[in-house]
């Protein structure tokens, strides 16, 4: 046998060994299967064993630092002197408000100063001093657009391609297309905040209509991070080993009477993975072995950065151990600053800025950044005008999904690059727009997947993440 199995060997060993991989997709890709006209319904089963991509991709894993609520781009990422110039004067154009009741048409100049950072000179707000240290490693997208002015819909757009619930999220597609690189951990994990669940709860990591095996597994914010990882003390070790051995022999006998049923194989395999997860997952979540300087780098030693830093560090440990897709969520929609932005926005930044920058630095120093995409961003930005005109301390900004910022690092994204522009007021993305579907196509591309070919047969149609939208791979921001 050659050192690396050929595609066919791969298919054979998995299809008939485990009996349950995403066979239709793989066969289709190899043209081994005539295009079926009807959906695969109940006779096929799926798993998360590793599968090679169409072409070798740069990215092997992704960490999405998802900032629900809508961080204000004109106060953080996208300097707009025009706003300062016209501060508190009437906005001359048309504004697309979400909350017309509190709307004001007064321009709201950013209270924070911007300055060029790094070698590249990317301009960032003073609220993000740690991000300033890694600008040469990130692509800053200033022209994100979903165009649907509410949190839920815009989150759905970024997660699943369309503005409604029920479709599979990006992480599920990656698990379906590529499987997991770890035999000790699930392929897709979501890290939630100790302060509460994110807006939309489980919908953030839903497998939609993909088989449920591709659903994200929620990691609890506090120990135990996964349920039932601890064997009961008296069975721990030898006792449970004996149990699993007996169980395996009983199940093998049962299996022999039902040779055609691959689910029984998968079940037998799942005990093996579960046994490995008991060690693997526990070890992955255990930060006690991390050196102090690393913990300090993530801000785990400080009260305000402790929660987020811990989760960023866990995220790094997970991708290091082969997890394909990790989401890190804030609670609720804590970036939704309709009011009191003067105090609330710096507070949020203080919690996240250091840990997020540390994650990129740490991945880089371990040589993992080249193969790991880090995403930082929310589902929207904010409006150039002020909301809640009841005194400067109460000022805020309303939703804006027509133009907002996100940053990307690693996995094939350029360093020190700014992608796109919003208009002079920061309201609409106007140049080199990156729609959510363009973003998806680009991400799949970096993983070696093709957004038109990563299909799932559903209801007689070829369902995709992009769902027929005119997506383009945004090659300008790729290294």
């Amino acid at each position, binding site marked *: 046998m050659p050192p690396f199995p050929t595609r066919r060997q791969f298919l054979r060993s998995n299809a008939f060994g485990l009996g349950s991989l995403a066979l239709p997709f793989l066969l289709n890709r190899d043209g081994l299967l005539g*295009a079926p006209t009807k*959906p695969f*319904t*109940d*006779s096929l*089963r799926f*798993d998360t064993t590793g599968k090679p991509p169409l072409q070798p991709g740069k990215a092997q894993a992704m960490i999405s630092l998802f900032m629900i609520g809508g961080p204000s781009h004109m106060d953080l990422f996208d300097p707009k002197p025009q706003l300062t110039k016209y501060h508190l004067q009437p906005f001359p154009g048309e504004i697309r408000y979400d909350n017309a009741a509190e709307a004001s048409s007064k321009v709201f100049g950013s209270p924070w100063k911007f300055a060029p950072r790094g070698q590249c000179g990317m301009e960032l707000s003073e609220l993000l001093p740690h991000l300033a240290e890694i600008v040469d490693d990130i692509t800053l997208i200033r022209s994100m657009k979903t165009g649907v002015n*509410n*949190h839920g819909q815009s989150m759905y757009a970024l997660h699943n391609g369309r503005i409604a619930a029920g479709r599979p999220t990006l992480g599920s597609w990656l698990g379906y297309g590529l499987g997991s690189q770890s035999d000790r951990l*699930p392929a897709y994990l979501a890290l939630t905040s100790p302060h509460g669940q994110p807006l*939309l*709860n*489980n919908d953030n990591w839903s497998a939609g209509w993909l*088989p*449920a*095996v591709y659903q994200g597994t929620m990691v609890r914010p506090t120990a*135990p991070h*996964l*349920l*039932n*990882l601890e*064997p*009961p003390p*008296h*069975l721990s070790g030898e*006792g449970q080993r*004996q*149990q*699993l051995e*007996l*169980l395996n*022999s*009983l199940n093998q*006998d*049962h*299996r022999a*009477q*039902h*040779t*055609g*049923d691959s*689910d*029984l194989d*998968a*079940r*037998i395999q*799942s*005990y093996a*993975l*579960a*046994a490995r*997860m*008991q060690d693997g997952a526990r070890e992955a979540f255990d930060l006690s072995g991390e050196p102090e300087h690393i913990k300090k780098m993530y801000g785990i030693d400080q009260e305000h950065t402790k929660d987020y830093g811990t989760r960023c560090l866990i995220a790094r440990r997970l991708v290091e151990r082969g997890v394909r897709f990790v989401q890190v969520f804030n609670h609720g929609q804590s970036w939704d600053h309709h009011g009191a932005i003067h105090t609330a926005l710096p507070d949020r930044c203080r919690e996240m800025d250091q840990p997020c920058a540390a994650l990129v630095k740490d991945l880089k120093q371990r040589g993992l950044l080249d193969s790991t995409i880090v995403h930082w961003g929310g589902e929207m930005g904010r409006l150039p005008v002020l909301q809640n005109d009841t005194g400067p301390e109460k000022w805020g900004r309303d939703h804006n999904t027509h133009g907002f910022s996100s940053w990307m690092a690693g996995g094939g994204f350029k360093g020190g690059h700014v992608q796109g522009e919003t208009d002079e007021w920061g309201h609409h993305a106007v140049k080199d727009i990156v729609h959510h579907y363009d973003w998806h196509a680009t991400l799949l591309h970096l993983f070696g997947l093709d957004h*038109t070919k990563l299909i799932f047969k559903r*209801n*007689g*149609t070829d369902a*995709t993440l992009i769902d027929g*939208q*005119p997506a383009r791979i945004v090659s300008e921001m790729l290294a």
Partner: protein
Amino acid sequence: MLFVLLFLSAKGWGAPLFEKDIRPLLKAHCFHCHGEAGKKEGGVDLRLRRFMLKTTDEGPVMEPGNSDVSLIVQLTRKGEMPKGEKALTPSQVALLEEWVRAGAPVSREEPESIPAVYITDEERNFWSFRPIVKPTVPEGETNPIDAFISGPLRASGLDFLREADRIILLRRLSFDLIGLPPTPEEMQAFVNDASPDAYEKQIDRLLASPHYGERWGQHWLDVAGYSDSNGQEEDTPRPHAWHYRDYVVRAHNDDLPWDRFIQEQLAGDELLGTSHAQATQIIHESGAEAKLTATGFLRMAPDPTGGNVADVNLARNQVMAETLKTVSTSLMGLTLGCAQCHDHRYDPVSQQDYFRLRAVFEPVYDWKKWRGPNERLHSLHTAEERQQAEKIEAEAKQMDAERVAFAKNRLNEIFAERLAKIPEQDREQVRVARETEEGKRTPEQHELLKKYIEAKVGTDEGLLLLFDPEMDKKRIEMQAKSTAHRATKPKENFLMIASEISNEVPETFLHNRGDHDQPKEKIEPAAIEVLSPSQPVIFTKPKPELTTSGRRLAFAQWITDRKNPLTARVLVNRFWMHHFGRGLVKTPGDFGTLGEAPTHPELLDWLAADFMDHGWELKRLHRMILTSKTWRQITDPQTTSIRERIYCGAKLQRLDAESLRDSMLAVSGKLNLQIGGEPVSVSRDVATGRIIPGKEVINPGNGMIDKIEATGENAFRRSLYIESRRSRPLTVLETFDLPLMNPNCTARTVTTVAPQSLLLMNDAFTLEQAGALAERLEREAPLNNLDKIQRTWTILFGIAPTPIETTRAMLFLVSQRESLQKQGLDAAKASHEALAAWCQVMLSTNQFLYIE
């Protein structure tokens, strides 16, 4: 026939035809801009062949016989059309080209003009929209089901497999009908029953069991989207939903005919002729409670409007949209959701159709005059109960007053004693200061009370503890008495019902792109057009005396009409799915063009017709299915998707979430079989993160969970009775694929993932049941290990273990005991824990998890 031939191309029979081959393609990809809803981009309308015979600036849209100049071929080939969409596949373009080259043949002469929504004969003739005609049963088999199944089976050179052994058959039957395993005694009785109808008697026994309704009721509750909470972020409890759950269970146990069952759920209030205002008054009239409870079906969708929602109007419209999803997928087998924003791309369902259906429910869910969840509750108190409750409250208030007076009296006495001890000249002023409210006292008074601090005896009853602890005990006794007295009030239950306001019928407008802020034309309540033969079926008041709109009653009658082609097909297909693990139509919630066609269309139609012919009675259908050879076969050891498709052998099925939990409880001896009533609360166990039965006790001070109160024997009730909070699914059930109700579930998924194994290996629930089973064995088979091993096999599987299995078990018990002793357990404890560890293995085997 002659007519059709005339329009066939000269090039022969093989050419594609517009109506059959080309139009569905164009409808899916092009009509959105070229024809639908009056849109004709670039002046091009592709809905008829005639319309394509036109030339634009760029050239002819379609020139019959000449694909090289036809834009319809050229632009799609280059991927320039459809715009902003996925390009057509090469084979789709090739089909277009072939059609144009063949002269663009049509099946029949095209109509002179077409309405905005044009449904072709091909679409009307789609299998699920065709009338149900009862086919003749093929010869050769006694059971009609076998007669239909045997044809394709034998045509493939196969035959039914042999009948399964009685033990396997009874286990299968028992899980199928009541969701519980048979007891060893039941298995013994069946094996020993030599009568010719022994099997039929088992079916009758199980159908008569009150647990039958729990099992089959659960199937309907899935499609109805039953939940004990309101959903969305807040997911507040819905404490009264269970009345509807119990109604569904009772309806199944009573074998309520399904046409009535459906009518009651859609329009129970209108069957009674009642409005929102009258409902509470008539609730106790004969039969009224059940019919009103039934309308809870329309209250199952997530409804966060009782709490904080970001966009109120959106949330209200969403409740309506989710309700329509439930109604259409459960009863019509159609996914109408996408027609909320635009015409359905594949099925002949227009946006108008969607809003016609919406108009049926608009009087219940009038988003402009919204009633929140609490405004849709109706008290079940009788007049006497209400009176009684008021009387008890009055008495309790009297007791409260007496207690307060008692405390105050005593405090006054104490004050008087202390007052007597201070200098006489200050007494009057101190008395006045004490009687003055704290906030109104002058600085002098404050000073005075500080000076004579001993005389600062307040009047609040709680202070008695401070001044006279002995007497305070008496006060606490008095307080306990009034609390206890209040607790004797009859408990007030409520029904959550769907109802309408008298003589108030809101208008329904088509919402442009589904946006409620963009109303367009007014829409009348009517049947979807493809099911309206010639004249549209308008849903108007079937009984003039109704003060409500009568729309739902009319809709319910139409849905359950013998001539409705969808309802009975959808229902019997789902019944079939629950018996066989897959439907005759494998997409039970989608009978449209995107769904799958039936594998056995004649059987499906025969079953549907027969079901209606015999009074829509489900238990009769169960008997027919369960006595068929088709159902009684052994599982196919060499199953393949093809053999499975033609029903060669039965399908091995994993226990669903509820059956797994319930059967573990059943064999451990813990199962509490109490039927109906309030659900058992669930809570999040802070230490382990699991959702478990239990009641959260909230600390009023900080709003945090103080502790979780165990629910005692209630924790072991059947899964149906465990509170179904959308955001808090019981961990044991969720891990094994309990569906999320957002809004409902038409077919469950089955996954095989490691967290399931972890649960069986380490979860406290598994360990508890294994321990309880071990204790049961120690009681029932005290003799020795061999005895216990055999008893386990009898309880779990009804059979004896093989010698190899016995030997393995004996060896395991020995080595496990040794391993436990090494950890410091004494001999007796180690023996017990070893047995429990073995029981745990047995409860985790595939033999236990799967039904043969």
